[in-house]
C-alpha cells in the first residue's frame, strides 16, 4: 500500500512526571476503520489528544497526509482535516442543536453549511426534530449523535471517535455503530477508541490493543476477536 493517512511513529507523551504514552507506533490508511481498545487509563484518550498538541509529544513523530502534526499549533490541526469527537460528548450545553452543528464548521468556514446541515439531519433524523432545543436537554444518546454530527460538519478526512458508546444503552450503541458504518461506507477514514471491544472489532478492519501507554497487539478485527489474551481481558474469557 502507499503512504498511510495517519502515521504515528514511536511517540512518547507525558503529563508532568507521569509518562502516559510510551513508544506508540501505529498507522491508518485512507478509507480504513481502525480501532484502539484498552483498559481504563491505558492512554487511549491521551493518544488522541496528543494529536491536538495537548499533551505535547516529547519524542517521536506524527504525520497526517505527509504533514508533521507535531510542528503545528494545536488550533491548526482541525483545519487540516481531522475531527475529534471527544470522550464524554462535550456538546455546547447552552446552544441549540443547530448552533452546535454550525460550531462544527469552525475549521472550514460556513461555505457548505446548509448542504451539510441537511446531510446531518438525514443521517440523524432525531437531531432535526430537536434542532431548536438546547443541547443540554438532549438525552445521552442524542448528545453523542450530536457530537458525532458536529465533528462531521468540518468535512474531515479522518474522524477520531473517543468512546462513543460511553454510558449508553445497548440499543443506542447499536444504533450509533450502524450510523458509523454508514459514514464509513461513504469513504470516511475512522479511528475509533472503544471499551466496547466486541462492537468495535466487528466494525473495524483492523485494531490495536493498548496497555500502560504501549501498543501490545495489532491485527485484523477477527484476529483480535479470536485472540485468547484479548478475550480474557475484555470479554470475560
Amino acid at each position, binding site marked *: 500500500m502507499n503512504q498511510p493517512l495517519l502515521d504515528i511513529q514511536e511517540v512518547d507523551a507525558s503529563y508532568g512526571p507521569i509518562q502516559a504514552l510510551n513508544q506508540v507506533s501505529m498507522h491508518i490508511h485512507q478509507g480504513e476503520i481502525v480501532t484502539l481498545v484498552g483498559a481504563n487509563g491505558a492512554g487511549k484518550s491521551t493518544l488522541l489528544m496528543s494529536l*491536538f498538541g*495537548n499533551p505535547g509529544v516529547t519524542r517521536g513523530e506524527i504525520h497526517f497526509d505527509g504533514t508533521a502534526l507535531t510542528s503545528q*499549533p*494545536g*488550533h*491548526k*490541526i*482541525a*483545519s487540516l482535516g481531522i*475531527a*475529534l*469527537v*471527544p470522550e464524554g460528548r*462535550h*456538546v*455546547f*450545553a*447552552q*446552544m*441549540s442543536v*443547530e*448552533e452546535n452543528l*454550525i*460550531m*462544527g464548521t*469552525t*475549521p472550514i468556514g*460556513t*461555505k457548505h*453549511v*446548509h*448542504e451539510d*446541515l441537511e446531510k446531518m439531519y438525514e443521517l440523524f433524523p432525531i437531531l432535526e426534530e430537536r434542532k*431548536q432545543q*438546547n443541547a*443540554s*436537554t438532549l438525552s445521552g444518546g442524542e448528545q453523542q449523535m450530536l457530537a458525532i454530527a*458536529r*465533528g462531521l460538519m*468540518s468535512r474531515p478526512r479522518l474522524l477520531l471517535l473517543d468512546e462513543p458508546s460511553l454510558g449508553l444503552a445497548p440499543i443506542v450503541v447499536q444504533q450509533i455503530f450502524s450510523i458509523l458504518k454508514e459514514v464509513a461506507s461513504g469513504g470516511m477514514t475512522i479511528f475509533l477508541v472503544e471499551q466496547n471491544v466486541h462492537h468495535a472489532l466487528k466494525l473495524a478492519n483492523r485494531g490495536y490493543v493498548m496497555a500502560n501507554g504501549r501498543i501490545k497487539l495489532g491485527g485484523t478485527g477477527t484476529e483480535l476477536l479470536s485472540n485468547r489474551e484479548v478475550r480474557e481481558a475484555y470479554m470475560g474469557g
Partner: protein
Amino acid sequence: MAIDYQYSNKPDSLSSNELLFRIRKSLLDAFITTLLALAVFGPIVGLELDGYDFQLQLKSLVSILGVIFTGRLVASLFFQTSQGEKLLEKFSRKDTSIRVQPLNQKAANGYWIIALFMLAGLMVPFLASKYWITVIILGMIYVLLGLGLNIVVGLAGLLDLGFVAFYAIGAYGLALGHEYLGLGFWSMLPLAALLAALSGALLGFPVLRMHGDYLAIVTLGFGEIIRLVLNNWTQFTGGPNGVSAPAPTLFGLEFKRRVKEGTPFHEYFGLSYDSAYKFIFIYLILFALVWAVLYINHRLTKMPVGRAWEALREDEIACRSLGLNHVLVKLSAFMTGAAVGGIAGVFFATYQGFVNPTSFTFFESALILAIVVLGGLGSTKGVVIAAFVLTVMPEVLRDFSEYRILMFGLLMVLMMIWRPRGLVRMTRSSFQPPQTVRQAMEGVR
C-alpha cells in the same frame, strides 16, 4: 396538589377547618420569622452604647419586630391564596438555561421600544434638573462598565474580579494625558480605550491557562496592583491627592465661565453661563456612546468571535477539538471588555473633573460584578436595568442611606431565591449561517 388548587380557586368554598389550618400555619411562619429578626436586630437596634454603658432601646426594637411580624403574616396568608400561589410559581421558576430564539421569531415591536427609549433619553437633559442629569450620567457610566464586564464574565465565562483596573486606567488616562501631554477629552477617548485594551491583553496573557477561582484571584490582584501603583507613585499620579481631568469641548469651545483663549461655549451662542451645560453635553455624548456600545455588543454576539466566546464558556475541550484558537478568543474577550471599561473611566474622570485612587477600590469591582450577575449573566437588557437600579436607587433612597448595604444584601438574597440567573434571562437569537448562501440555496431549489 390538584385538590388544593381547586380549593384555592374558590375561596368562598373553603372549609372552616382548612381556613383555620392556614391561619395557624401563617401565624407559625410569622412567629419564627420574628424570632429570627429578634436574633438579628436585637443586638443592633435594641442596644445602644452609651459610653461604657448601654441602654435598652425596646421601643424601636418592638416596632421593628411588629412590622416584621405583620409583614410575614400578611405575606404568608397572601401566598396561600390562588393569586399568591400563581405569583410564587411565576417567580420560582428555576429555569436556568439560556433561551435561544428561533430565527423566524423576531421581536416585532422591538424597534418601537428602542426608538421610544432613545427619544425619552434625548429629552431628559432638557427637562431634568442638573442633579438628575448627573445621577443618570453615573448610571450610564455603570451601564458601560456592566456591558464591558458582561463580555468577559457573561459571554466568555472568565470570572474577573479586578475589572475596576480598566476603569481606573481609562480615568487616569484622561487625567494624566491632559497633565503631561496636553491631550484633551476627544483625543484621549480612543487612546484610553486602546490603553485599557492593551492592559487587558497584558492581564490576559498570564491567565490564559487559568479558570474559575484561580483566574478570579489573579484578576483581583491585578485590580489591587493598579490601585496601589496609582496611590503610591506620587510624582507621576499625584498619589492620594489625585489629578484634575479636563471637560470635553464642543469643536474647541470650552464649558467654563471664563477661558484663557478663545470664547467659552455660552458666549459663543449668546447664552448666560450655566454649569449644567457641561453635564448636558457629557450626557449627550455618553448617551450616544452607550447606544453605540449596545449596538456593537449586539453585533458581536452574532459574529464568529461572539460565538467563540460563548463556546469557550460552554466547553473548553470541545473548543480545542474544533480548532478554536483559545488564546485569541480569551484575549479578544479581555481586550474588548477592557476597552469598554476604559471608555467608562474617561467619562467618569471628565464628569468628576478630578480622579483619585479611592474611586477604584475592590468594592467598585464587586459592584460591577453585582450589576452583571443581578442583570443576568450575558443578558444585555438585564445589565442595563441592573446598572440603573444599583446606581440610581441609592440616590432615590438617600434618606435611607444608612441601610444601603443592608438593602443591597437583601436584594441579593431575594435574587438568589427568585431569580438565580439574574433579572433577565439571557436570550439571544440563534446563530445564522450567512444569508447569501441561504438565499442562493433557496434559489436553487
